[in-house]
């Protein structure tokens, strides 16, 4: 099993969610985060004092999937989250050793 973590632009969350739903992903967990990267931030001037806001709002997705599904999920996210502009975000994949459903205690594939 793999954990796919994706950092995307906030306004893309509905698109990505729908695209993932369409390929059968049944669950994910989402958080509001702030990103620092090439996109750069912007500056805000409050009463003459300039503040550099280096961080831009992003959304972070975590999806645990069976290893076979990884490619499809990654591709779907890339397709549905891309705008072609800088700051579209990243996806990274890492290994998950166990997955448990709290309600039932089921493990592994069944727990997803």
């Amino acid at each position: 099993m793999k954990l796919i973590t994706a950092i995307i632009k906030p306004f893309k969350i509905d698109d990505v969610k729908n695209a993932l739903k369409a390929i059968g992903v049944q669950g994910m967990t989402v958080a509001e985060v702030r990103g620092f990267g090439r996109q750069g931030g912007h500056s805000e001037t409050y009463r003459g004092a300039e503040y550099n806001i280096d961080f831009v709002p992003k959304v972070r997705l975590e999806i645990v999937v069976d290893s076979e599904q990884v490619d499809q999920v990654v591709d779907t996210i890339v397709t549905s989250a891309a705008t072609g502009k800088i700051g579209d975000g990243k996806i990274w994949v890492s290994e998950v050793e166990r997955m448990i459903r709290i309600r039932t205690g089921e493990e592994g594939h069944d727990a997803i």
Partner: protein
Amino acid sequence: MTIDSGATAWVIVATALVLFMTPGLAFFYGGMVRRKNVLGMLMQNVFSMGLVSVLWAAVGFSLAFGGQNRFIGNFDFAWMKGIAKADSLPGYTGAFALVIPPLLFMAYQMMFAVITPALITGATADRLKFSAYAILIGVWSVIVYPIIAHWVFSPTGWLFKRGALDFAGGAVVHINAGAAALAVVLIIGVRRSYGQETMPPHNLPFTILGTGILWFGWIGFNAGSALAANGLAVQAIVNTHLAAAAAMLSWLVVEKAVAGHATTLGAASGAVAGLVAITPCAGFVGGMAPVYIGLLAGVGCYAALSLKKKFRFDDSLDVIAVHLVGGILGSLLLGLFADKGVNALGADGLFLGGGLRLLGEQGLAVIVTFGFSFTVTYVVATILDRTIGLRVADDDELVGLDQSQHAETAYQ
């Protein structure tokens, strides 16, 4: 010119109350937009307090209330000239002559001029460019608002003379702003991702706060329009409050029946719908009439929500359903419920044995106000759209008005 200190005291306070409505409106709307646009919304409202006030002092008041012409005022009082001692101001003669200083009348009317264009911001939420907005309401406050105010509010105006009744601005404020909102919305188009992305209100407590301030301020708006601290003002406060209360109830009942839940946004919307509808009627009806008007307004404005679905325009925060439809409903219902026993300067409506005359005049006022405001606003907005553009760039819309227009973040 006799000045009554009680009347003066009340109208000063009413002026303050109406002033307070604009920040109230800012929060009413601001709570409903998305988090990235809340400052844009607050700013547009607050900015009207700046720009329109100065324009009103410069020319607006004079264009609305100067002179004897039936269609437009003049420049007699422009740049604050001679207002303080203006015995020549319409309304200062005859048996019902005002008993407050003319300058106070100017100040009180100023607050109406400020909030009216601010009402438009709800329709164009999330996409109207700040610079375009500034120019739009600047122009509008010179060539639309004062003219309609003249027709309806000034004793020398043609609609006033024909006998159309508008106690506190059903036509001048609500139909006027609603028609302008519709015009701008048709030109500016729908929000990006409208209908695809969910755009629920980001801070409903702010909307409730705004509703509380609006309701509070509306007492100044309607009861202040008596321009005296007398029985008429009292009648107006009672009517205003009861209509708001009743409209909240009827909106919630319908909402519960149709959509399954009575919502806080529904309570807020219903109350405002009732306040809008009672505005033209506040000093002309009595007894349980405000309750009936309120009940009908709640249902009517709720039903009007579907207009935007049917006609596919994106009136983001329902200015048309609440202000335009509410204002029309109130103006027409006055033709039914008006009661000369309440106000000798008024008339009797259909239900009080006055026949259809008043209803006809009210209908005419509705049509004329709507037509004039819609048309002129449409032209102005089109010109703006073709020149500097009404709408922010796509990227600016995505990132939100707060950052793109004002380089600020609402919450850190």
